[in-house]
């Protein structure tokens, strides 16, 4: 199957999920109502204010988180990192706690901006650490990331505990689409737009993935490309945390799945990474609404289970395939 075939099949799958997502949920809205032309104002409102935004939010978050994961892997030349395992997401959470403490009434946009600033700082610390420590081993890099993430998370918990914000921190650190309403998710568009920069600069990020020496040799402004990627990754993490909360594993599983089958050439794979990210997150959200119908399981829980299982499978495959 050619790239184009796979891409169109994937898009078809996404459209089907999209339609399914619009009609699944506790509120009364079925496909039949619309087909019979019995759509009343209440149903229309439910569709436009809740279901549609929720569905779009899941797709945007999934696509941009997957691309952020891919970028992070290229920037650190390591396949086993993603924003939520190296401190980016945790730093964004800390930023949300701090800004909520200092300026409780600030606009969500402002809060996300502060969170992005914290996320940039956290990610920069990670990148500086792995460069200073000259880590060569593939598994030490994610381990350092986990340690850093743990420290930042502990700091966030401490501040949140002192300021009585633990409940909010909980919401930011576990992704859930059930609170998405029109007017409360639109920041995710910014994340998606930044993610599309990855497509425009795909060659540069691919080169960065080959390491600093190769990049500099070929005349790439390596530090500038890393800085650009750092901002994109951090901003995506921040808008996700600010609007729906963090979702684990998307940034890890999707890029690994795609690079294993299609390679690391960014220009070829970025669209696929975005597409599978959207499908995976929307799929998990739909599943979360179905499993205990009419109750819901948060997407972060479903993703935690599905993602870790997928990741273990990938790890085993990668081992056997490439020593």
């Amino acid at each position, binding site marked *: 199957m050619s790239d184009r075939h796979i891409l169109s099949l994937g898009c078809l799958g996404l459209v089907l999920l999209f339609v399914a997502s619009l009609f699944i949920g506790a509120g009364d809205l079925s496909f039949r109502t619309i087909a019979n032309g019995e759509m009343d104002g209440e149903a229309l409102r439910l569709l436009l204010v809740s279901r549609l935004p929720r569905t779009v939010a899941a797709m945007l978050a999934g696509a941009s988180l997957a691309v952020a994961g891919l970028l992070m*892997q*290229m920037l650190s*030349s*390591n*396949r086993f990192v993603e924003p939520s395992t190296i401190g980016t997401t945790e730093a964004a959470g800390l930023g949300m706690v701090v800004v909520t403490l200092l300026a409780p009434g600030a606009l969500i946009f402002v809060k996300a901006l502060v969170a992005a600033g914290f996320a940039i700082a956290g990610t920069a610390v990670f990148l500086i650490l792995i460069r200073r420590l000259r880590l*060569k081993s593939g598994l030490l890099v994610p381990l350092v990331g986990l340690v850093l993430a743990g420290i930042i998370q502990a700091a966030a918990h401490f501040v949140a505990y002192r300021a009585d914000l633990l409940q909010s921190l909980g919401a930011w650190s576990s992704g859930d689409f059930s609170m998405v309403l029109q007017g409360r998710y639109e920041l995710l568009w910014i994340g998606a737009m930044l993610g599309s920069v990855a497509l425009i600069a795909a*060659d*540069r990020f*691919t*080169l960065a*993935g*080959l*390491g*600093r*020496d*190769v990049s*500099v*040799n*070929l*005349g*790439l*402004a390596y530090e500038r490309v890393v800085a650009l990627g750092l901002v994109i990754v951090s901003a995506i993490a921040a808008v996700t945390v600010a609007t729906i909360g963090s979702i684990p594993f998307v940034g890890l599983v999707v890029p690994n799945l795609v*690079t*294993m089958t299609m*390679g*690391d*050439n960014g*220009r070829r794979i970025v669209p696929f990474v975005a597409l599978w990210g959207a499908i995976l997150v929307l799929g998990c959200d739909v599943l979360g609404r179905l499993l205990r119908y009419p109750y819901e399981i948060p997407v972060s829980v479903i993703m935690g289970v599905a993602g870790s299982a997928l990741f273990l499978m990938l790890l085993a495959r990668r081992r056997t395939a*490439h020593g």
Partner: protein
Amino acid sequence: MIEASALTKLYGDSRVVDRVSLTLDQPGVTAIIGPNGAGKSTLLSMIARLLPIDKGRAFIDGLDVTRTKGSELARRIAVLKQENGLLARLTVRDLIGFGRFPHSRGRLTAADRAKVDEAISFLDLTPLSDRFLDELSGGQRQRAFVAMVLAQDTPAILLDEPLNNLDIRHAVAMMRLVRKAADDLGKIIVVVLHDINFASCYADRIIAMQEGRIVVDGPAAAVVTEETVEAVFGLPVMVREIEGQRTCLFRR
């Protein structure tokens, strides 16, 4: 043309490279040899702007490497270090295509594609061109990276220990290619080598380094002598002419 004047690299108090000056302006193969820690790779990295220069200056075609745009330098000098492609599940052809990045900035023209094809056939990579790098053997992968720097089409090429991790057959094949690139394509090639015999057999000129300094610099035949090798490596050796090849053997 490569020129270095009083290049110095400091790590703390120790001078890893100590006021090294050299000029390379003739096509051909120059080998840099010397014991571990002599500063060979560091020197190469400074000339190729991969490491900051602490003192002294380096020029490529008269351009100061610390002040010239990276993309400008990338069309004049290519460098290949020992460890490459940490995240490199690229096809051989894609990788070599990236060698054209300094010229095309990512959009390959027909002329770029021709250069890529040339490099592929020069290194006998045609049957492997659509394979992923991480599915190749060490020697094949090394060849692909050399093809990348060849496709970069620069007058000067620096190779940092290109024979590392290669068995004798692949090492000889690699050195033949290096020789061929210098002879057929008229390149200035600098190779850091560990094995004196590869330097002796394939290089026109040998530069021997010790403790950050150049101690000997001359035509291969003049450098590979018992006195010089003993002085540079601190090891008694025998140098013999075997069927026209100047060969260096260690003493038991």
